[in-house]
């Protein structure tokens, strides 16, 4: 919905439906739990974090199941948002002017649709890494591997399982680094978090960061404000 909320002076634009937000938080929560339980086994100095799950064995068995939750959750996000994340010509202009992006000089940037090139990068990179982590994660999960080996009729060699461990750890580091950028960007660009809590952003936020999207949203309305999704 667009319109004024009680007592608030600014135009509110709807950015995410309730189900999109629930979907996002399922992924967000499972991601954080996966990160904690995974990092705990990544470096001994972080092993104490297994205590948050009730000990090492619990952290070990719960991690792959959380991975399944995240995989399904991310699939939902992918289906919802992949069209809006398809690359377009202005993305390259935006990327070429990354200097202005980091300096917060929006006036030097092209008008952006629902997602800018940085957000699209996060989307596609995480989609790819989730897939990589799922496949390699199976190789690290004794019970899961046995299931898939029987299901698909193959037998993973020990070197394949070792390679899976290396790739899984490497992909995990990249996915966490991208997650840090994602969370930081949401904090740095003030007014963003409400999109994922209440589902709305102010008109000014949309004008400043996603003007093309705002024009489209307002254009949709036959002579007035109209829901975005």
């Amino acid at each position, binding site marked *: 919905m*667009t319109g004024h909320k009680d007592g608030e*002076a*600014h*135009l509110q*634009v709807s950015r995410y439906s309730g189900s999109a937000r629930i979907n996002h938080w399922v992924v967000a929560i499972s991601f954080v739990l996966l990160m904690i339980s995974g990092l*705990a*086994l*990544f*470096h*001994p*100095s972080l*092993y104490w974090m*297994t205590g948050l799950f009730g*000990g*090492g*064995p619990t*952290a*070990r*068995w719960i991690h792959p199941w959380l991975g399944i939750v995240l995989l399904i959750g991310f699939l939902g996000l992918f289906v919802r948002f992949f069209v809006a994340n398809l690359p377009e010509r202005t993305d390259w202009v935006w990327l070429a002017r990354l200097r202005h992006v*980091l*300096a*917060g000089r929006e006036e030097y940037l092209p008008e952006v649709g629902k997602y800018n090139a940085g957000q699209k990068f996060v989307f596609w990179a995480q989609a790819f890494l989730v897939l990589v982590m799922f496949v390699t994660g199976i190789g*690290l999960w*004794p*019970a899961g591997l046995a299931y898939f080996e029987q299901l698909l009729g193959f037998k993973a060699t*020990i*070197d394949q*399982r*070792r*390679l899976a*461990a*290396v790739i899984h*750890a*490497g992909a*995990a*580091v*990249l996915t*966490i*680094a991208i997650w*840090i*950028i994602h969370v*930081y960007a949401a*904090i*740095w*660009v*003030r*007014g963003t978090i409400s999109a994922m809590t209440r589902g709305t952003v*102010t*008109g*000014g*936020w*949309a*004008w*400043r960061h996603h003007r093309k999207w*705002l*024009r489209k949203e*307002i*254009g949709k309305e036959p*002579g007035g*404000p109209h829901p975005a999704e």
Partner: protein
Amino acid sequence: MSQLQPAFGLAKRSATTGFVPAAKAETPVAKMIDVSKCIGCKACQVACMEWNDLRQDIEENVGVYENPHDLTPNAWTLMRFSEWENPERGQLEWLIRKDGCMHCQDPGCLKACPAPGAIVQYTNGIVDFISANCIGCGYCVKGCPFNIPRISTADNKAYKCTLCSDRVAVGQGPACAKACPTKAITFGTKDDMKKLAAERVADLKDRGYSKAGLYDPPGVQGTHVMYVLHHLDKAPLYAGLPQNPRISPLVELWKGAGKYAGLALLGITAAFGVVHHLLAGANRVTEEDEENAEKLRGGGT
């Protein structure tokens, strides 16, 4: 269950940053298995079951001598039978190797293990799994160059030969060595075992096995279970014993440089965020932006 033997000091402890080895080092011990003397009676397997109180499920006979079919969480040692036609001597050789943990001086399982204290190496060289600390992740399986550890589906813990560390702690040799009727298995200090092996190798060479030798692979800095082989140059003949075992470079990468590079990248990314926010400040929506949005709605452009 496999428990820590407090009688021995620790040389290595898994996943323990800042670990300090025991000041007093014990004399390194070793089990020497003379494959040329083995008659395949499996007394060692029985002794191992008895002492460690292990009972492997009864299986189907599938027409091979191995019983059970493989090492399992309940079978920590296994006689593996290989037949080989020796082209030089024109005879069939029955190569029987008692498989089990080699107790590497540089244990890949310990390197791969993420659980503090789940795998230890005593100063006498014995590598022990400490069940109370094991989380059942199976990383030791990936770290091992000899395919030894097995994860129990009953309690999700890893198991393997302890070199009877509980017997050694009270001055006894391993159960398998005690039971072996031909003295193919002997136990003592590593130096003594090497001397004994040298005598056996000389004897085998006298008898025409020119490539006989002691299997104490340098790729893992030597092992505390060694084999006297008639064909040291053809180790894989002995049921796939690796010729030059070493910890996989993939495991070294994963547990070595990879760990530090990974943490560094995460630290740098987080630091970038902090520094960027300090320098650039928050990206705030201005009142002008809000007014422009209002105008856009009002004007319909």
